[in-house]
């Protein structure tokens, strides 16, 4: 079969780090190729080389029979390669049509609005994109916005579409729609590179998979006959999807966190207890009261009525600081704004909560020496890959940033941990790490509230599972009695 894209022996070094080590990648017309790999495995570098954002140190690229060397992103686009970024490059305040026309020659210097709107409707119908040219992007769901990007690519005659983590921001119904659109594109003979670390999707949509690890191809297989475990093993050198050793039923200790008849804006009346050595998992579609619940427990939102107690002490109206001294720890979902100060160093972020206590400080003064020593110890323990404690947190990968949060909160040996989307956006290796730490904390006797919209994570570590819908719990089941269908009904039937 003649290949649409043919990348041969691509090498790219950054200093002495080899980000791409002799990588081959082929894509045929009408083929979806999955590009799998953890963060830092070299996927982005390879795509930047393809798109002309980075020149390769060695290797050749040929696209539709023409060599591509020393090209710019503009030349790549002109040749028919389109990149659909994880963060959409759209202007929210403008309409779909205006976004399509932006920077597009065919739209004319004097914009041919009507003709463009017709072409948009046409393509939208042909590929099942369901887009209205006059809709404002700000009013569209993330899934629709992504389809605007796909629409732009199709109208600009792209033959090869590169989708970078296309499902990471989508709700599951939208993921299904996206996959339908991709199948349509495949039928029309487009080539697609599907970058992801979500194995089920890759298995569902791709024809073949290329797996990268540490800059090398560690696996190349047709999807037929491949399994998740096999791919995961290629990706990180061990199988993280394997069922964990069955969790030792922890001795049912006394309740550490107890919530009784609790009411707050955005929440239905809630009552639950989490006991010593128990992980209470909360699943459900985002936006059903999760943020309200965790922030109320953490003391960031005022309680309406009811009572929250930690180890028997009433903290319903206690300040954040008072809750912390009672042994509460909180890992917020948005590590970028609530959990970390991105412009400060790793060490400073690690001491945020406890800067007044040894080893970080003494009275009003910070003790830099011991604080740095402590930071180094935590970096080693929690595998935070930064050059040194003074490295700026915002420059680390998402996984390493989250490890800072995990290290800080877990090192306080909390009695109660509230973890919200603790593995959000992390690759399987880092997710595995976070989940393992939760289990270790459970062993140590803490009560853990683990809130996540990734059902698999919740199922993997929870002793009891609740599903949140419309601000309340649609149901709670112990680990042994989970019926996935029932969970699905709870989630879907009453999801906002």
């Amino acid at each position, binding site marked *: 079969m003649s290949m649409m894209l043919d990348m041969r022996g691509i090498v790219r070094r950054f200093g002495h780090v080899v980000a791409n080590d002799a990588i081959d990648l082929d894509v045929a017309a009408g083929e979806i190729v999955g590009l799998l790999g953890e963060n830092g495995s070299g996927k982005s570098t390879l795509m930047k080389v393809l798109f002309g954002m980075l020149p390769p140190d060695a290797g050749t690229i040929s696209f539709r029979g023409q060599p591509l060397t020393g090209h710019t992103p*503009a030349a790549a*686009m002109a040749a028919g390669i389109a990149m659909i970024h994880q963060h959409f*490059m759209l*202007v929210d305040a403008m309409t779909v049509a205006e*976004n399509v026309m932006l*920077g*597009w020659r065919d739209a004319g210097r004097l*914009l041919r609005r009507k003709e463009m709107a017709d072409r948009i409707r046409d393509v939208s119908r042909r590929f099942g994109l369901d887009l209205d040219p006059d809709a404002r992007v700000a009013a569209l769901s993330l899934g629709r916005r992504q389809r605007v990007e796909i629409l732009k690519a199709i109208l600009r005659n792209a033959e090869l579409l590169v989708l970078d983590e296309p499902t990471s921001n989508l709700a599951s119904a939208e993921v299904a729609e996206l996959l339908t659109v991709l199948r349509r594109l495949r039928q029309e003979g487009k080539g697609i590179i599907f970058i992801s670390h979500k194995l089920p999707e890759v298995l569902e949509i791709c024809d073949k998979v290329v797996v990268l690890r540490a800059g090398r191809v560690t696996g190349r297989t047709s999807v037929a006959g491949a399994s998740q475990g096999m791919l995961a093993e290629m990706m990180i050198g061990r199988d993280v999807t394997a069922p964990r050793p069955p969790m030792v039923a922890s001795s049912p200790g006394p309740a550490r966190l107890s919530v009784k008849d609790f009411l707050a804006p955005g929440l239905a009346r809630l009552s639950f207890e989490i006991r010593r050595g128990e992980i209470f998992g909360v699943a459900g579609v985002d936006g059903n009261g999760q943020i309200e619940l965790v922030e109320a427990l953490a003391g960031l939102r005022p309680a309406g009525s009811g009572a929250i107690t930690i180890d028997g002490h009433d903290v319903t109206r206690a300040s954040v600081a008072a809750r912390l001294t009672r042994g509460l720890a909180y890992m917020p979902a948005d590590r970028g704004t609530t959990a970390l100060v991105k412009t400060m160093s790793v060490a400073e972020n690690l001491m945020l909560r406890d800067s007044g206590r040894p080893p970080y400080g003494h009275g009003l003064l910070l003790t830099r020496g011991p604080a740095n020593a402590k930071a180094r110890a935590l970096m080693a323990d929690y595998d935070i890959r930064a050059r040194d404690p003074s490295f700026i947190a915002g420059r680390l990968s998402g996984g390493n940033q989250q490890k800072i949060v995990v290290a800080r909160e877990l090192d306080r040996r909390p009695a109660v941990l509230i973890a919200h989307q603790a593995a959000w956006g992390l690759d399987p290796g880092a997710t595995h790490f976070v989940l393992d730490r939760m289990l270790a904390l459970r062993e140590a006797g803490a009560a853990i509230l683990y809130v996540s919209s990734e059902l698999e994570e919740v199922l993997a570590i929870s002793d009891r599972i609740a599903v949140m819908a419309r601000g309340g719990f649609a149901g709670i089941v112990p680990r042994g009695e989970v019926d996935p269908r029932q969970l699905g009904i709870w989630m879907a039937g009453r999801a906002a």
Partner: protein
Amino acid sequence: MIEFLAAAIRIATPLALAALGGILSERAGVFAVGLEGMMLAGAFAAAIGAWATSEPIAGLLLAPLGGGVIGLAVAIVAVRFRADNMVTGLAVNVLALGLTSYLMRILASGGRPVSMRLPLLTALPIPALSDLPVIGPLLFAQPPLTYLTALGCLLMTLFLNRTQAGLTLRATGENPEAVFASGGHPARVRMLAVIACGAVAGLGGAVLTLQQVGTFTDGMTGGRGYMALAALIVGRWTPWGAAAACLVFGAAEAFELRLQSFGVPVSSYVVQMAPYLIALTVLAGLGQSSKLPAAIGQPLPSTR
């Protein structure tokens, strides 16, 4: 009544031109705080041109240059070197005031400013239309820059909504990354927009020297640039909206002048405060609903 409306239009014209310039700058994502300085430099350049040649047309040609130089300064400092928009704008306003006052004294070479008497641009009545009752003398017997202002509103609206360049400019103010991703150059767009802003605001300044006052005095714009800034916000960053806001400000000022001339004991300071008071009231009323271009004031990433 006609006189009152004529006064309102007269007062609104320089504001509206400056606001048109400001729209270019702000919709491209750069706060137009420097409008005051751009107007003043334009007024000065217009005065010099007309004074040196005794031809108001020469002044008209120089005015955009004067304003454009200030625009260039803002573009270099705020876009190229990514400095804070507010501080940069305020700085060029003070710079323009000092520079024009200084140059006036150099010209006189005696340490005292020259006193200029400039030929004014005369009214150009449009045949037939100007004979209409009431609206004829009001709308169709105006000096050239007033026509230009109305035409400017029309052209600017078409430019922003109907051309690829206008679309790119608006996108740069909303999401420069998107412009970059579609093959554009956000930094270039912003620099050109700010320079064009200076040129148009410079014409606004020329209205004062060439069409109304007939001379240049130190700091003669007297805060009109800030009023134009308020007008373009009240007008929601649209040309016609901003022009309408300028007319409201103009009417308020004309009304106060009237009161004074009828001997109503109103302090001239109250007169001067009134338009700003209106602007503040309107701004407070609009509050958060006056939606700014999303990326305004945000410097571009250094690589773009």
